[in-house]
């Protein structure tokens, strides 16, 4: 298991303390800076590893950064602290974005990011909780994170604890039946402490979701499964912060976050081939320029 980077973790806690009293615009300004840093890190990791899922990493970055740096109650020096909030990345192929965010928060040293997918690295292509602090479950096969998050939320509810659980799902992943099993369980058990965020970038590995197996009307599906629905721009940190406020209805909250696959690098945005294409050295240079 990797261990925390104490100075980074302290810096992160200072940032959280500062943001606790800040207004939402001020918070969003800080979060935008972190998102840029995370995207740059993702480019470097994927360029080094020559492997990765850059399109989805970029669509989910603002969601992930908002959760970790703006919302969740976490202590990078105590990753298994029992009353921590739980963040579950169900779309585990976007590990580079998760690892960059975790390293930014001090869960482990940033120098580890250079080992992404290298032989014997803790940073596998899909996250492993046994090796990486801050990872709650080993995702990768789709449709796994949501039931696990549901179980975690249920445990908190059974114990009357106030910690919350957030799960981030890919939109293509909503084609997996297990997700809808979990959606039914969470609403049946009235898990108001559970938030499911769909990274709605409208592209899956090979084509648009709506051309593959249509998800729409996605919001209606969530509502009909008994969830409180919030639909936002998934790159607007202010909107995400507001959407991540607790449930107001006693129901679990679904956030459909409308995003752009490849967000932040013009030539990658909304292009299906950037699901797992690796940028050339020239494309890396251009990408880092745009993310400066």
């Amino acid at each position: 298991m990797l261990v925390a980077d104490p100075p980074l973790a302290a810096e992160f806690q200072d940032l959280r303390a500062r943001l606790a009293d800040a207004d939402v615009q001020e918070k969003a300004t800080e979060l935008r800076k972190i998102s840029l840093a995370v995207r740059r890190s993702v480019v470097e990791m994927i360029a080094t590893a020559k492997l990765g899922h850059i399109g989805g990493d970029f669509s989910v970055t603002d969601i992930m950064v908002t959760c970790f740096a703006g919302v969740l109650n976490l202590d990078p020096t105590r990753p298994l602290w029992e009353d921590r909030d739980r963040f579950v990345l169900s779309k585990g192929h976007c590990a580079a974005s998760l690892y960059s965010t975790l390293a930014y928060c001090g869960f482990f040293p940033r120098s580890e990011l250079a080992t992404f997918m290298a032989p014997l690295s803790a940073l596998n292509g899909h996250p492993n909780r046994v090796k990486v602090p801050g990872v709650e479950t080993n995702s990768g096969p789709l449709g796994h994170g949501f039931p696990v998050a549901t179980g975690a939320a249920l445990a908190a509810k059974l114990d009357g604890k106030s910690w919350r659980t957030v799960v981030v799902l890919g939109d293509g992943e909503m084609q997996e039946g297990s997700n809808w099993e979990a959606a039914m369980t969470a609403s049946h058990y009235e898990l108001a402490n559970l938030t499911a965020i769909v990274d709605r970038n409208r592209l899956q590995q090979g084509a648009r979701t709506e051309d593959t197996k249509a998800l729409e009307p996605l919001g209606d599906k969530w509502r009909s499964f008994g969830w409180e629905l919030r639909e936002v721009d998934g790159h607007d940190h202010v909107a995400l912060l507001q959407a991540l406020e607790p449930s107001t209805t006693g129901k679990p909250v679904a956030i459909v976050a409308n995003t752009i696959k490849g967000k932040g690098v013009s030539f990658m945005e909304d292009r299906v081939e950037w699901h797992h294409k690796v940028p050339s050295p020239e494309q890396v240079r251009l990408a880092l320029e745009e993310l400066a």
Partner: protein
Amino acid sequence: MTVTAEAATYDCRQDFADELIRLAEADERIVAVCNDSVGSSNLVGFRERFPDRLINVGIAEQDLVGVGAGLANGGKIPFVSAAAPFLTGRALEQIKADAAYSNTHVILCGQSPGMAYGELGPTHHSIEDLSWMRAVANLPVVVPADPEQTRAAVRWAVENRGPSFIRIPRFKVPAVTPPGAPFGPGLSNTLTDGDDVTVIAIGTLVSRALAAAEQLRAEGIGVRVINMPFVDPLDAGTVLAAARETRGIVTAEEATVSGGLGAAVASLVSAEHPVRMRILGVPGVFAPTGSAGFLLEHFGLTADGIAAAVRELLGHGLHG
């Protein structure tokens, strides 16, 4: 130990449920998770005693195992209980990724395993479970043979701080475990001494192996009967001693012959001390229609079938 046809037999689901309730009284982390299987998992009593701690996810096995892993993440000790064929077949990837690879303290309870559902047919038989579970890393595979081992398995699984799979027998079996017998990973019970052939059996087949040993003793054949509840990890020391000290090994399990107990024993002895073996189980076919008892007879998973395999190994011919 003599086992006769008149010996009392037990449905171990009751022992599973009683032991679970006993432990849950003392440890509030223990919860039960089921898939509309409250009755078939014999969890009615648990639900009455702890209504909030019986989680029913409905007919949804993938969700069942994932929710179990999440409950463990949240500090619970979940007994995830479902009919063995659906638990291991439908939720195999969740067992691999959410329980075993994620190293969560999820206790997977395969109810009514083997061919216990008899006439309901191969869709409801769980004869592949041992092969599938053995293939998953970091997942002990436990097959209790009687009430005492069922209770011991439940206790062990709570103490073990990782994932495990336990078959909970439904087919009625006699008690076969001597008082004070050890129970744990890599441990087994040698029930009879014998230097001619070893029979390693699990679950429903243990009492039948003992009956076979009785038959063969009358013929002057000494059979060493070993009850090996941990199919993974095996008691390697006892298996290899048997390989060295007897002339061959017969394994007997209510499961397919591909990948279960027999395969585990074979891969060990073939590497360390090759001996002749016979692997008794379901020989790579879907069972015909019939009761559980009928099907065990049909596939020779009986005292007579085990005795015949022993004689054959010794070169006495199929019928002695």
